[in-house]
């Protein structure tokens, strides 16, 4: 029964942010940092998140009060949690759905935390996962979803259209605290590569702070930093090229080592089962780093048609960002455009993977390259289009 009271206490803590005055969360250049300070309400003691230092120093010290509730863990002597029961947060996303598929195929019992919405994510249930409704931005809905869960895999990121901090920071903090309090035995967190180097990008800084928060929480965890998803390129370049619509690209020199989400899912589960990787930080990168222009050229070659490319100079993106930051009502937009700051720097989003491969015992040949991935995609789609055309011709026949 002690465990239930601890959960209750946790609930009370978690509900506090809902009571705070929303007007205090004003958006400005520093707004999200201020938001972090506000979210200290979330924790019971005020010293949990304090600002210290200034300028380029990391001015956030994140601590987790969940450590104080360690005593509450393991109180329930009941049924032991099966190591195959996992909870996937963000299961409907690009990475999340691959994680779910992989987990199901490897024999895990998968529970998916999905936001309640009118059109439920039926495909998850169709694959054999259990879907539970909860919303990270409403922390009181979280604890029930964690009952009987051995491992939490967190691949959630807020949608572009919603304020970045609700899910990505407050929600995650609540989730981590809750997982700690309820004795979840492992927490896998997906972060962004180089997130510690770009505090000016809100999402990256949030991810970095979450990494630290997780680290300090005392939970047994694995942090995996990712560079870019190949799947994202489909909607961005491949589909517009096939539909002969205009493709938008930047002239940024930034290179990103895109990786297939299926490979990410595969490596994640290998890492998850490896006890030596606990509390480590892994970075997954694809075999080669690509610039936008290179990707577009590759798509053009594979599709066999020229793309109608609209190149937007990075300077314009940056300018737009500066402009949108001036107004409160466009600050969300500014947050979203923040990545342009990173784009303008000549950075390669990639890491050598040899060490990771040997740590996981994976053959580098098994990781899909972008050429192979896109080639498969285009062959499949072009074949499908051909079939469709053939079918439509057949239907012209009347009897």
């Amino acid at each position: 029964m002690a465990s239930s009271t601890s959960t209750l206490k946790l609930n009370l803590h978690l509900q506090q942010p809902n009571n705070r005055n929303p007007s205090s969360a004003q958006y400005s250049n520093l707004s999200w940092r201020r938001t972090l300070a506000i979210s200290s309400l979330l924790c019971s003691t005020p010293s949990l998140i304090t600002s210290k230092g200034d300028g380029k120093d990391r001015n956030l010290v994140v601590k987790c009060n969940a450590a104080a509730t360690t005593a509450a863990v393991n109180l329930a002597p009941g049924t032991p949690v099966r190591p195959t029961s996992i909870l996937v947060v963000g299961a409907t996303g690009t990475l999340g759905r691959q994680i779910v598929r992989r987990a199901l195929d490897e024999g895990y019992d998968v529970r998916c935390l999905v936001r309640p919405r009118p059109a439920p994510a039926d495909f998850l249930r169709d694959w054999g996962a259990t879907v539970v409704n909860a919303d990270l931005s409403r922390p009181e809905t979280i604890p029930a979803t964690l009952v009987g869960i051995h491992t939490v895999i967190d691949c959630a990121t807020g949608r572009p259209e919603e304020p970045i901090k609700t899910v990505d920071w407050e929600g995650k903090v609540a989730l981590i605290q809750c997982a700690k309090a309820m004795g979840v035995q492992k927490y896998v967190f997906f972060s962004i590569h180089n997130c510690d180097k770009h505090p000016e990008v809100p999402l990256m800084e949030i991810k970095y702070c979450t990494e630290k928060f997780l680290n300090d929480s005392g939970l047994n965890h694995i942090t995996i930093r990712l560079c870019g998803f190949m799947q994202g390129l489909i909607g961005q370049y491949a589909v517009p090229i096939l539909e002969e619509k205009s493709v938008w690209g930047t002239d940024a020199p930034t290179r990103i080592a895109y990786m297939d989400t299926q490979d990410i899912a595969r490596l994640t589960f290998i890492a998850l089962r490896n006890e030596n990787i606990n509390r480590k930080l892994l970075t997954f990168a694809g075999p080669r780093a690509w610039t936008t222009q290179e990707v577009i050229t590759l798509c053009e070659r594979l599709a066999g048609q020229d793309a109608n490319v609209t190149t937007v100079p990075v300077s314009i993106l940056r300018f737009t960002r500066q402009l949108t930051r001036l107004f409160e009502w466009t600050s969300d937009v500014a947050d979203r455009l923040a990545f342009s700051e990173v784009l303008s720097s000549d950075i390669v989003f990639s890491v050598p993977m040899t060490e990771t491969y040997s740590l996981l015992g994976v053959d580098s040949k098994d990781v899909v390259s972008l050429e192979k991935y896109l080639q498969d995609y285009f062959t499949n789609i072009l074949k499908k289009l051909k079939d469709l055309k053939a079918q439509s011709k057949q239907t012209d026949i009347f009897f």
Partner: protein
Amino acid sequence: MSGASAALIPATTTVRFSKKLEYHHPKWLSKVNDYSVSYHRIYCSSSIPSPPTSSSPNSGKDPKKNPTKKKKKDDPKETSVDSASQMVQQKEEDQELELASSVSVMKRLDEVNPVGLGRRSRQIFDEVWRKFSGLGQISRTTRSDDETDILIRDGGPMCEFAIPGAQNTVVLVVGATSRVGRIVVRKLMLRGYSVKALVRKADEGIVDLLPTSVEIVIGDVGDPETLKDAVEGCNKIIYCATARSTITGDLFRVDHMGVYNITKAFQDYNNKLAQLRAGKSSKSKLLIAKFKTEDSLHGWEVRQGTYFQDVVAAKYDGGMDAKFEFTESGEAVFSGFVFTRGGYVDLTKKLSLPLGSTLDRYEGLVFSLGGNGRSYVVILEAGPTGDMTQSKMYFSRISTKAGFCRVRVPFSSFRPVKPDDPPLDPFLVHTLTIRFEPRRQRSFEGVNGPNQDLRSFQLILEYVKALPTGQETDFILVSCTGSGIEPSRRDQVLKAKKAGEDSLRRSGLGYTIIRPGPLVEEPGGQRALIFDQGNRISQGISCADVADICVKALHDSTARNKSFDVCYEYVAEPGKELYELVAHLPDKANNYLTPALSVLEKNT
């Protein structure tokens, strides 16, 4: 719909349309009624889709109004037309010939429609903005649902699990809520199969356990009546049910009769389908000979012979003798002795197959016989029936066990007697011979012990049937090796499981029998697996790996008609090394099953 009718039907309907528009846009109409009626026509048909509530009653009335052109003048009065629509009507009657000129006017007007323009410009702006802001983002994709369909559900490029042919395959999973079955169902769903699940009760808890688009059939393997619905429409069956207790009754019901009932139901269904096509089921066996009555022995003749002529030795030999008779106990017995060195006795018959069936549609023979542990040679003579001199002989050796057993002899195991002859063509087979020879007989541990005379024999024949051919397995049975069961009940469990396996082998269905070591509930794909035959394995195996083998075996031709043990890799104790063991690391990318199974023996 409304557009078409408006363009085709003159006067009355047009008026009605304009009234409606006037209801929605009175200001527009009053300004516009100077222009021709045709403006309204096109306005109705193209630019603003009128709300369904207004258009549907109208289209319903159209046909009634059309033929009654006389009513045209009454119509406006009835429906209290105001000045605007009256004017419209008059104009329409006057200017019917000037339609063409007015079309251009209204087209231009249509383009100026501010609502449409605004909407379109906003769409364009949104699109541009979306793409623009997308550039500044860390790759985040919001995918619409239709795209999801293309990429994932329909075996698109993101569907790494999709298997060609899976979409047209319906798999019945028996025991879908068991430890293995649950994972099997999920794996099948991920690969795009249509799945039916046989459950005893459709409780809420059970239904929640299964994916939503699994078809749930309520039935009990112990009750044959309930299985008819379950097997309907199925192409393949995976049986992972097992008795919940080790009580003999339960074991008999689920592990033995359960398999029997479902194979029978499945074969019945196949036969029913075949009858609809006015043919024979391609999955049923062909009866070649059945020894139930005395008459059935007709046509079989006993012959003697020797491989070589040794005149001197023959004088001292005891000779040989054999007879084929129907005993009083109702058994057809082929018995005798061969004391001659190099001698043999044959039981032979010219085959007469039912009309329309040829052996090339079958892949082997199954004998049901009591051979008392002796080994026999099955000889097939093949060649054109018109010219017996061209016949070629093919042989295959079978061994029997004490008591009755079924021996499956695939045609592929027959080798030509003369090494130069071409391989056996089952189509040409015309004579079947069962031969006993004292060579290479091995004494077995039986009642008589080692003191048997290996030169005498007694073979009880029950039937000879031809096995239907097929590329893939039809029925996958998850059995067990017996390790990990409490010792006191192990024999009973194994007996029931074995009986179940046997009934499956007898059914004629292509089968795969998987005997896993003790099941462990942990994720699969972690450790190398050992595939073996002969009940020697000692390790456990994860449920997920067993499920993976089941799913992989569905379309693997090497898995057809095989039984094998499988467990985690282990290092054998010194002195007990098993050289046949082949370990394979299961992974989704590689197909470990084919190489693992190809070295194992068939028809076991």
